[in-house]
C-alpha cells in the first residue's frame, strides 16, 4: 500500500483517472522511466529498510507493485532470519 501511494503521489499525480493494477508492468504502462526507477528503488530501500543489489534490480522485483511487495517481503524475511 505504501508503494502504491508513493507511486501515485510521485509518478501518477498528473493522471487523475489512472488505474494501476498490482500486476501491471510499470514500464509498459509508462508509470516510470529510466530515471524514476532510481527514485523508486531509493524509496523502497529507505521506507522498508532493505537494500537492492544491482542484480536484484530486475523486472521481476521492480517491474510491478506486486513484484515490489514480493521483493520487500522476501528481503525482510531474509533479514529477520
Amino acid at each position, binding site marked *: 500500500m505504501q508503494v502504491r501511494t508513493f507511486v501515485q503521489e*510521485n509518478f501518477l*499525480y*498528473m*493522471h*487523475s483517472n489512472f488505474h494501476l493494477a498490482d500486476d501491471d508492468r510499470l*514500464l509498459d504502462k*509508462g508509470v516510470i*522511466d*529510466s*530515471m*524514476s*526507477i*532510481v*527514485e523508486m*528503488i*531509493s524509496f523502497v530501500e529507505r521506507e522498508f529498510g532493505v537494500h*537492492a543489489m*544491482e*542484480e*536484484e*534490480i*530486475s*523486472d521481476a*522485483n*521492480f*517491474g510491478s507493485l506486486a513484484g515490489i511487495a514480493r521483493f520487500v517481503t522476501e528481503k525482510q524475511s531474509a533479514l529477520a532470519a
Partner: protein
Amino acid sequence: MCGIAGIVRRHPTGVSVESLGKMAASIRHRGPDGYGFYVGQRVGFAHVRLSIVDIAGGAQPLTNEDGQVVVTYNGEIYNHPELRRELEERGHVFRTRCDTEVLVHGYEEWGVNLLDRLNGQFAFAIYDRNTDTVLIARDRFGVRPLFYAQRKGAFYFGSEIKAILACGEVEASLDRRGIDETFTFWAPRPPRTAFAGIASLEPGTYGILKDGALWLRRYYELDYPEAGEEPADVIEQLDELMLRSVGMRMRADVAVGAYVSGGLDSSITASLAASASPQTLRSFSIAFDDPRFDESDFQREIAGNVGSIHAVAAITHDSIAATFPDVLWHTETPLVRTAPVPMYHLAKLTKDSGIKVVLTGEGADELFLGYDLFKEVSVRRFCLRQPASLGRQRLLDRLYPELMSQGRGGEFWRRFFLEAGSPSDPLFSHLPRFMLSARAREFYAPEFKSGLGEIDVLGELRASLPARYFGWSSLNQAAYLEMTTLLSPYLLSSQGDRMAMAHGVEGRFPFLDHRLFEFAAALPTGSRLRGLREKEILRRWASRILPPRIKQRRKQPYRAPDSPSFFGPNAPEWVGDHLTADSLRRVGVFSPASVDGLVRRCRSGLATGFRENQAIIGVLSTQLLHHQFIERIATHAPLPVRGASVMLSETAPAFT
C-alpha cells in the same frame, strides 16, 4: 550578419515604409549598425545590419546596376571572393566589396542555380522586377532563419517571427501542433513553428513567389553514400577540408573570436582560428557554479594551449531564472531545457568584449557521430541480436556512467532501452529520446489534448522520410534524424542563431561546411564511431593540434540546470505568477492540477528526472511565450526613414 523582413502584395496596392520600419525595429538586435528599406508598390524590403564585411559599402537593401534586382540578405557567403572573380570575368561590375553583391549579380547570371554555388550560411529575398517574382532562400543546414506567412493574398517574411507580427497585418496565435511537436522533438518540425500560419522555410530550400502563389523547392538534400573503406589519404583530405573551412570562416573585416566549451570540437575550431587569426584570438566560455555542468578546467587548458585571451560567463541558478523571459522572447518557441540561457549570457559577454563574430564547434557531433545517442543505437541493436546476453546489456551501463555511478540501474534500467521500439522501425534510433520527451505531454490540459485529435507526430515523421533513407545504415539514419529534427530547428536556432543574435553576435560553424558534411557522410560509419569511441577520425586527425587530455576526452553533453533554477530562495516573482491555476487556464495548454503536483515536487527538490524537468521548463516557457507574444505583444516604434543608410524606392532607386 543581419536581420531581414519584407512584405509582398498580390496587387500593387503599396507597402508602407512605416510597416517595414516596425518590422525592422522588432529585430534591431540582429543589426545594430544600420538599417535600410526598399519600398515599392507591390514589394517592400527591410534590412538591419551587423557590419562585418565591407563596413563602409555593405549597406542594404542592395540592387544590381540597373536597379532591377533587389536583395535583402542575412548571412555570410564565404566563397564570395571566388564567385566575384567568376562574375567579373563574365562582365558584371561590382560597386562594393561586400558578399551581398555576389547575390544580385550571381542571380542575374545563374538564376536559382546560384544557390548550388554558394558556400555559406544565409537567408535572403531577391526581388526580380523584370519577372515580377520574389525568390526566398535559406542555407543548406538551416544556420540562418527565415520565417514567412501568407494572409489575404499578401506574403510576409522575416528573420524572426516577431518581425512578421510587428507589421500589424498578421495576428499571433499559438499553433497547437507546433507546441505538441516540441514535446517530442524539442522543437516544432519545420516548416511548422509554434505560431499558427507562420512557417519556417526549410533548410536547403528556396521559394519563388509569383502572382500570389509560393512555389517551394529543395535545392540541397542530405545524403549518406557510405563507402566500404576509408580512402587511403583520408587524413590529408580531412586536413585540407578543415583548414579551408576555418580559413574561409575567418574572412571578415572585424576580429573573429571563438567559443570554447572544453570539448574536442570547439577545441579544434579555436585552435585553427588562433593559427589563422592575424591578432591574438579572443575566446569565450561558460562556467557553472554547479560542478555537474562545469567544464572550466578543460576550457582553461584549451585557452592556454591556443594562447587566447579568455573570458568566462559565470552562470548560476539565479542568472538562468532572471534571464529566462528574455531568452523566450528571442527563441519564439517553447523549450524543454534551459540550455539556451547560458548561450545568451555568453553572447552578451562576447559583444561586451567587442567581438562580433565567433567560431564554434557546432555540427561536429552530427557529422562525426559524437552524441551518446549514436552509441546507444549501436548497443541497442547489438543487444537485441542476442537478447539473453547480459554481457551485451552491460554495455548500456557504460553509456551513462553518471547514472550507473550511483549503482542504480541493473537489468530493469536497461529494459527501458531494449524495449523502446523494434529495430525494424525507421525511427528506432530516436524512439527512447522521443518517448522520454513526450512524457511532458502527460501534463496537458484535457481540452488541449482533445483539441489535438488523433495526431501521430511520429507517424508523420516516418511518412516524411525520403526513399533513400531506407538504404542507409542505422547510424546514418540516426545522423539524418539528428540533422533534421534537432540540429536546425533547435540547436542552430534556440541555442544558436537566436541567442547569439540577441546580442548582435554572429556564430560561424566550420563543421557545417557542406563539403565537410559530404566528406563525413561518405565515410564508413566505423571511421566516425568505432566501437564506443565517438568521432574517431576527428580524434586521429586532431592529435596533431590538440593536447592528449583534450583529444582523448569523452564527450560531455552540454547541459544547464533546469528545475532547480526556478525554485530556489531567489526565484523571480514571474515564476509563481505564470504557474497559478488562472494563468494556466488562460493559456490552456497545461492542466492546473497536474502542474500543481509538478510544482510541489520541484519545490521539494524531488523533480530530478527528465520527465519532470522537461515538463516544468516546457510549462514555464509555454506560459512565457503566450504572455509575451499573444497576451501583450510588444509594439515597436518604426525605425525612421531619416536614419536609414539606404532608402530605395521603386520609382527612383538610389544608391547611397
